[in-house]
């Protein structure tokens, strides 16, 4: 007979059984029993953030960079509501995460008790699943099931709400065996006949494109390897969404760069003129498709996705395949080789692509007077690429410039908030990534506005001696907002100037960081070197050209062929239809 344990001890033991090493959290009344259980053990390391939102983003950064689920622990009421943004972010970007929230005691639920919030109600539609655990007998099984759901199929956040009396009451805990859920059974293996059809379509295509996405990263590093093999044997070009960057090496000749709103000319034109698009773990997001009725009009479409609801959501496809994309690509490679298909003659297609490439759509004007933000990213990449750094970002122009000019060679190195577009994601995500990868060089490429949304996390990095680097492209504007105002509202810059900025260098120092500032392009490389060579956390306030815009750009709701390039004169007013689109 095993002895009974408190719910709090069961939680800690179950987390240990699940291999959890790090929990990101913040204490409060409704989780005190759990914090006491944590105090009494040594196997799980608790990282104290400075705001619950940061705990969720740190968990996301940890998860995306390690492939393991991120774990968060917060108190009831404000602790839980502060976590909602990061939970939603994880849902949108398919990040495996388990969030444990304290709740008022079961008999107090529904009485507007102190720090009571309807966490289950609030998070019902921003989680993959959530649980209110009303008895310690259920706790062990629920925790194991929650991890299973968060990490399998299409990954996502799962909330476990634990009332305080359930943390104190006792029950027996037993580690369950492999989970066979009665209703939740994601399909990972593709139907063989569909794989065969996909291979035949690919073998017959004259203008194929692989359109890869975050699902390839979700499928694990092996999926990125098999993608390389699939591209090699077919000779087809590869483009990726923002979320899939790194799955395919940017140094490959077959790489077209990112597609979509801020994607390259060659990637978007290839999509527009292709006769076959193979979507691999990507979800036809509006940032990618642009105007739907003009999206890839000549192409047959194959879509491999583990979530049936991603299929035919916005774009109708010809061959849907529900499967883990890594497994499906493996099957495709096997069938392709088994049938002794040779690489098609795609020379006419590649010749066409070369013409598009010659447009040099990522061009930006050089300057010796001010630091061009694009140049800052390029220099950062040149100086750090040999260390294969992990890059996180905030949201805005700097994020897009990083996506365009930092060339990723491997998966799990690029952590960004794509679906929700959450300013304030990057610094906590970098902290999480650094904890998961203690020897890696981790850099948050930030904007001066975004960074202020979770700036308090400078203290977390100091406390745990994390050598995170924070590289702020300070243009004194919410640049992305200003850019849209320029394009859509005749440059009426309503509330998009970053007024009253702090002295970032002094701020860094106040938190125990090293602070550096660079303004002259001539000093840029030296500053980057000193950032890398300085031990411990370093903040760089990189003053860049204030009015630079991010190109190429497909305006919201426009076709891939209506791309604005750098040289186009783009300021003006848009019609109401365009103004109504996000």
């Amino acid at each position, binding site marked *: 007979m095993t002895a009974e344990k408190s719910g709090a001890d069961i939680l800690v033991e179950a987390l240990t059984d699940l291999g959890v090493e790090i929990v990101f959290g913040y204490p409060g009344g409704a989780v005190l029993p759990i914090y006491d259980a944590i105090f009494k053990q040594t196997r799980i390391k608790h990282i104290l953030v400075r705001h619950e939102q940061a705990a969720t983003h740190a968990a996301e950064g940890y998860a995306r960079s390690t492939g393991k689920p991120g774990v968060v622990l917060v108190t009831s009421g404000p602790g839980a509501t502060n976590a909602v943004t990061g939970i939603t972010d994880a849902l949108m970007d398919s990040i495996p995460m388990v969030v444990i929230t304290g709740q008022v005691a079961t008999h107090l639920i529904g009485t507007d008790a102190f720090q009571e919030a309807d966490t289950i109600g609030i998070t*019902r539609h921003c989680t993959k699943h959530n649980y209110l655990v009303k008895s310690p007998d259920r706790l062990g099984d629920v925790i194991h099931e929650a991890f299973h759901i968060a990490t399998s199929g299409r990954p996502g956040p799962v909330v476990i709400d634990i009332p305080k009396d359930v943390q104190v009451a006792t029950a027996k805990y037993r580690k369950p065996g492999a989970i066979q859920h009665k209703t939740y059974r994601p399909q990972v293996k593709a139907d063989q006949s569909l794989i065969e059809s996909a291979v035949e379509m690919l073998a017959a295509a004259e203008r194929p494109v692989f359109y890869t996405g975050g699902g390839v990263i979700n499928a694990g590093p092996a999926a990125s390897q098999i993608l390389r093999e699939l591209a090699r044997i077919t000779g087809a070009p590869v483009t990726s969404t923002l979320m899939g960057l790194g799955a395919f090496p940017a140094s490959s000749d077959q790489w077209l760069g990112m597609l979509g709103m801020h994607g390259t000319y060659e990637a978007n034109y290839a999509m527009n003129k292709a006769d076959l698009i193979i979507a691999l773990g990507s979800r036809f997001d509006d940032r990618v498709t642009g105007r739907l009725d003009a999206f890839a009009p000549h192409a047959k479409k194959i879509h491999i996705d583990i979530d049936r609801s991603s299929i035919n959501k916005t774009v109708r496809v010809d061959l849907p395949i529900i499967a883990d994309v890594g497994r499906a690509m493996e099957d495709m490679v096997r069938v392709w080789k088994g049938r002794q298909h040779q690489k098609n003659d795609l020379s006419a297609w590649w010749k066409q692509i070369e013409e598009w490439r010659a447009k040099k759509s990522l061009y930006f004007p050089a300057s010796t007077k001010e630091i061009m933000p694009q140049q800052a990213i390029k220099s950062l990449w040149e100086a750090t690429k040999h260390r294969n750094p992990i890059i996180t970002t905030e949201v805005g122009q700097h994020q897009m410039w990083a996506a365009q000019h930092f060339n990723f060679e491997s998966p799990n190195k690029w952590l960004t908030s794509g679906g929700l577009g959450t300013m304030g994601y990057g610094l906590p995500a970098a902290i999480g990534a650094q904890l998961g990868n203690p020897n890696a060089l981790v850099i948050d490429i930030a904007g001066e506005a975004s960074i202020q949304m979770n700036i308090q996390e400078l203290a977390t990095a100091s406390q745990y001696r994390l050598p995170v680097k924070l590289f702020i492209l300070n243009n004194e504007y919410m640049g992305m907002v200003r850019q849209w105002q320029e394009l859509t509202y005749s440059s009426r810059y309503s509330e998009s100037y970053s007024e009253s900025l702090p002295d970032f260098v002094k701020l860094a120092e106040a938190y125990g960081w090293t602070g550096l500032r660079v303004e002259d392009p001539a000093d840029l490389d030296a500053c980057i070197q000193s950032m890398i060579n300085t031990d411990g956390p370093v903040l760089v306030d990189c003053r860049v050209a204030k009015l630079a815009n991010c190109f190429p750009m497909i305006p919201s709701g426009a076709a891939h062929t209506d791309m604005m390039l750098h040289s186009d004169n783009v300021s003006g007013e848009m019609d109401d239809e365009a103004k109504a689109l996000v």
Partner: protein
Amino acid sequence: MHIKEETKERHTLSVIVDNEPGILARIAGLFTARGYNIESLTVTDISEDDLISRITIVTSASADVMDQIIAQLERLVPVHKVVDLTALGPHVERELALVKVGGTGDHRIEALRLADVYRARVVDATTSSFIFEVTGGTEKIDTFVSLMREVGLIEVARTGIVAISRGKEAA
């Protein structure tokens, strides 16, 4: 600028779910969160051990959206299966209504006569009122209720649609 409307089709879905707390909120909330509409929704436990419920939902949407609705429902962890009875073909749909009608004299007689035609049963009566119980498809109930309106309708309670596929197999 004006917001465009799409053409919609009405479908009856049968959703088999784990009978756990919050399941109704999960399903109904999915419809509001994603902007789908619900015309009718019924839930009850259908298993011996109280573990499984059938939720019958009538919704209308364009064909593409209907496909999404089903995929989104299937994605919910406690959902066992979703059957689009309308797409499946032959099935039976029924609704039950309790219709309270007041009146005396001719109106009373007329109400009883109509009730007979619509096979509505009298389940309560006073000297100046009846409650009729009527079952049938939505249209039949609609017509019955509108006829009763003419002879003295007081109030109506309706269950919403329950539906099941025809033939010997479970859908």
